[in-house]
């Protein structure tokens, strides 16, 4: 089996209130100079050897990400 790691982030320009709240909390803890904070999610998939990235892309388009508001990156790990 091989693995694919899918990282999903809100598109630039889509308001990310969770990221904003995290940024404020870091500021409250005394961490200075932190710029924009954005929160996303990581999904790891165990897939049969030889699976193409295009199959994972298809999974992203159909279910894992919502292309209207989210961008995704795929990392294939053999």
């Amino acid at each position: 089996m091989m693995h694919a790691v899918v990282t999903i982030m809100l598109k630039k320009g889509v308001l990310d209130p969770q990221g904003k709240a995290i940024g404020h909390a870091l500021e409250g803890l005394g961490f200075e100079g932190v710029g924009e904070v954005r929160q996303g999610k990581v999904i790891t998939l165990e897939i049969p050897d030889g699976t193409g990235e295009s199959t994972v892309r298809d999974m992203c388009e159909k279910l894992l990400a919502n292309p209207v508001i989210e961008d995704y990156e795929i990392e294939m790990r053999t």
Partner: protein
Amino acid sequence: MFTLPEAPLKRLPCERRSCYSKNMKASIIVFPGTNREKDMAMALERVSGRKPQLVWHKETDLGAPDLIVLPGGFSYGDYLRCGAMAAHSPIMREVIDRAAKGTRVLGVCNGFQMLIETRLLPGALLRNKTLKFICRQTNLRCENGETEFTRKLGKGSVIRVPVAHGEGNYFANGEILRELESEQRIAFRYCDERGETGSSANPNGSTANIAGIFNKRKTILGMMPHPENAVLTHHDNDSGLKLFEGIVEALA
């Protein structure tokens, strides 16, 4: 298929008797985590006089409904994205197929999220701007009174309907928004008691105060607020009745 309990309906103070024939058949789809199906069934029965059919998501036979309802709740625990799992469940293929053939579909709250996830309706529903789950009364201004859903309301009328959601912040980019506006596909906007749609009347940060939208043909309505919880006098008010009366009148 399972049936609703008889007792609660008999105790309802029905000052308005249903005035339509029992012709409109409604099917309410129930997913694991759905929790508003009975409110919806009571509202529809109150107006139509006919019990809607509750259809468990594992069933493949929808019957021949005039109206399909995707009710509110937390289907599949809101995993991945609200409504995403339900949108890809087997019964949904049947719903999409029926919707394409013109069967009317109403999605409320989680049901609206499902309609967005199936892409029967455009845009996206994000976390509320406040990051808080909001449960309170809102005022909605009807933006298009020329549809089967809103014919009893009329453009500009205001109804008072509760919202209860964490992810109801409707997002549409400029292109989608222009399309919705030019095609009169915005059903409801959040407003104040006088019908003004300022940002203070926007509970969740939705683009252009949008609370509900139609598909191109106006055969599908998705909305975050719960009209089924504004149909009895002890529900704060019953201004949601007109929505159901319009649907029943149009489809009976």
